């Protein structure tokens, strides 16, 4: 118990840095920012796994020790309890008057009758009764220990389920534009984090198309612009041959199919452009995913056109609702696309795509490029690019939604263990283990003395009342 206690304290203490420092598992960007802002302390903290607390060896060793200590404690106790469940309560002590609850009264009933009838009555109330010649010994509340064991075992199962799910499952994210699709294949994911023993052929062959995304926002008041509803309308095929079915995915209402779950986690805008080169040939016609920068969805992104000479790069902002106040740069004032515009800078030169270095699709490498102009466009407007760069038409916008797709086969086990742990806990903490005794002593001519007594090892609130109730069940012939 003392070891368990110390390990519990250590576990609580060890979790604290995980909430103070940004963690790679949940916010990798904030970790790199932290490392950039703290060039001296950052790497030291990193060496002690302060940014991976819950995946660190020292955190693992604490819960492993707890795991071992838990097993070492629960198994022998379970054996002991099993034996106890099959044995009888211990015999009544000689002196019942020393017990915490004790009642006595005179009676002239026959001892054997009192004993046998009381035994029946107590048994009916769920007590396990052992019968002596002139005494009864009863016990109740075994489910306290059963519940306690169940709770500790459930914790073991829970830990295993978490570990198992993490090892064989995976988690990926993907951004899908309206009228585009996704097929469940590792290459289609934007980020993909497999478990330690995950294998790619476990990916069920489902696919979906995003037909429409809708977002509504609060208009007016203190929370102006706060999101109120997100809805993604999907056309889902559970496998390549299946009939497509329409599914609405919302926050809190994921799509569940073939053991995987698809969550709607974010959204944004993808302005559509048609770009023609100087000869009028279409070199780009697509919706480019722009990433939101603030809560009013001022979004930034780039378009790369490698097929012109020199290559063309567009960097810009999409503003769903523009203002006339440009003093702080282009900024949207409301997240819904009430009055959309784009602000673009065009670059000519070498996009740097051939260098072999992987490039972000959201960033333009302008090292070898020259800015040729900037422009502000409303939907339908066309910009004639300077320097014989051709034309760029802002044809409108699409929305995109981002999804997290996960598989965690340990989930069901974890839930079962969690429910078992609550049931076990409730039994363990709310049911007192208690004993009750009856003794009939001959008291000469005046019949016999009946004594009823009770004891609870754990501080049972209602023990006295319960023993009184038991006493009332004792065959009490003076009522005649």
């Amino acid at each position, binding site marked *: 118990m003392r070891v368990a206690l110390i390990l*519990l304290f250590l576990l609580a203490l060890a979790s604290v840095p995980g909430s103070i420092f940004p963690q790679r598992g949940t916010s990798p960007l904030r970790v790199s920012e932290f490392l950039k802002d703290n060039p001296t302390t950052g790497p030291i903290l990193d060496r002690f796994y302060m940014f991976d607390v819950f995946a660190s060896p020292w955190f693992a060793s604490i819960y492993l020790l707890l795991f071992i200590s838990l097993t070492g404690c629960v198994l022998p106790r379970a054996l002991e309890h099993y034996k106890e469940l099959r044995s009888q309560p211990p015999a009544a002590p000689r002196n019942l008057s020393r017990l915490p609850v004790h009642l006595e*009264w005179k009676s002239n009933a026959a001892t054997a009758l009192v004993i046998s009838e009381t035994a029946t009555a107590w048994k009916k109330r769920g007590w396990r009764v052992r019968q002596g010649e002139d005494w009864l010994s009863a016990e109740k509340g075994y489910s306290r220990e059963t519940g306690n064991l169940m709770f500790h075992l459930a914790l073991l199962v829970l830990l295993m389920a978490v570990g198992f799910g993490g090892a064989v499952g995976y988690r990926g994210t993907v951004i899908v534009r309206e009228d585009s699709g996704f097929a469940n294949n590792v290459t289609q994911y934007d980020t993909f984090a497999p478990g330690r023993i995950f294998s790619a052929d476990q990916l069920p062959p489902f696919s979906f198309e995003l037909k429409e995304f809708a977002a509504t926002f609060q208009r007016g008041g*203190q929370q102006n612009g706060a999101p109120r509803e997100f809805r993604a309308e999907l056309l889902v095929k559970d496998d390549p041959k299946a009939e497509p079915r329409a599914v609405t995915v919302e926050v809190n209402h994921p799509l569940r199919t073939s053991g995987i779950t698809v969550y709607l986690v974010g959204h944004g805008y993808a302005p559509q452009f048609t770009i023609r080169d100087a000869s009028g040939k279409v070199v780009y016609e697509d919706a480019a995913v722009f990433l939101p920068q603030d809560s009013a969805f001022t979004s930034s992104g780039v378009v790369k056109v490698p097929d012109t000479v020199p290559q063309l790069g567009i960097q810009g902002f999409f503003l769903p609702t523009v203002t006339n106040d440009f003093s702080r740069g282009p900024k949207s004032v409301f997240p819904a696309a009430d009055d959309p515009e784009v602000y673009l800078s065009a670059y000519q030169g070498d996009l740097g795509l051939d260098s072999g270095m992987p490039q972000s699709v959201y960033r333009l490498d302008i090292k070898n490029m020259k800015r040729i102009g900037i422009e502000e466009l409303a939907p339908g407007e066309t910009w004639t690019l300077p320097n014989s760069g051709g034309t760029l038409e802002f044809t409108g916008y699409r929305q995109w939604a981002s999804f997290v797709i996960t598989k965690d086969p340990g989930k069901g086990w974890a839930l079962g263990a969690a429910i078992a742990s609550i049931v076990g806990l409730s039994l363990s903490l709310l049911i007192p283990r208690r004993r009750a005794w009856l003794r009939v002593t001959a008291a000469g001519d005046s019949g016999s003395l009946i004594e009823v007594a009770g004891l609870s090892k754990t501080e049972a609130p209602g023990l006295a009342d319960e023993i009184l109730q038991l006493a009332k069940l004792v065959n009490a012939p003076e009522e005649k």
Partner: protein
Amino acid sequence: MTVNETLAQASNAMVYGSMTAFTGAMAAFSISLANGRRLEAIEVSAERASASHQVRMGSTATLDKPAVSTSVSDGQDLGEGRRAGNIGMSLTWLGTLLLGAGIIFRGLSAGRVPIGNMYEFSLAGGFAVGLTYCLLSLTRDLRWLGLFITIPVLLDLGLAITVLYTESAQLVPALNSYWLAIHVTAAVVCLGAFTMGAALSCLYLVAQAAEDRAAAGMEPGRSAAIAQRIPSADRLDLMAYRIHAFMFPIWTFAVIAGAIWAEAAWGRYWGWDPKETWAFITWVIYAAYLHARATAGWRGKKAAYVAIAGYAAILFNYFIVNIFVQGLHSYSGL
């Protein structure tokens, strides 16, 4: 759906009314406590146990026929303070009911469960503390505890209307789930009951300090002034344990309900978000408290400190993590 401003204003008026009632209750309870006293002097442990447990423990009832016993009071003789104590009790009921009505009106004004931002959580938390206290005092005399309940409630409500106040409005999509009602209600109920548990553990420490001084033959210290007016240390310890033991499974449920909700909303049932981490820390500390109560050498004062640390973790999670730490649980409305 728009917000009904009239109902929102009515809700605010009720919250102010409730604070007035709780302020009156606090004044009445402090007068009651100042004038009350315990009949017996503070004794050393052996006698203490039997004195406070009265009929219940360690005595023999000799009966002609067994009869159902009357329940034993945990209360103390408030002497002159009885009247003021009664006034405090009534005002606490009034304050709690007004607060409950204020919460309901807030929910009606926005047409949703009224637990969507920190202002609303704080109202619900204050209500849970008040209601736990009022309900428990139906079956026993808890007037001596009133002052230590009304103070945290007033602090909580004061913070709510000054720092945390948010206009009545609809919910963000992440909160738009029936799990909000389940998870947050369970957590708020626990917050209320754990507040009472922490108050009892603190009072236990005071009473124990006074009894330790008496046992060591020392002059009564400052602790005696309060200890004279509240139940014995053993009694307080037991009451604190019962509240914590009763609430721990519910707290476990609250955490698990949160995990189920997180699974539906964020795609994982546990992700060590700061809020989750502190819920876990709180849970582990309270588990340690229950273990401490069953471990030789840890019972009593050490266990009480562990319980108080658990409550400190709850407060930290509520105020510091909600307001200052970045995470997915950013719904404080501030």
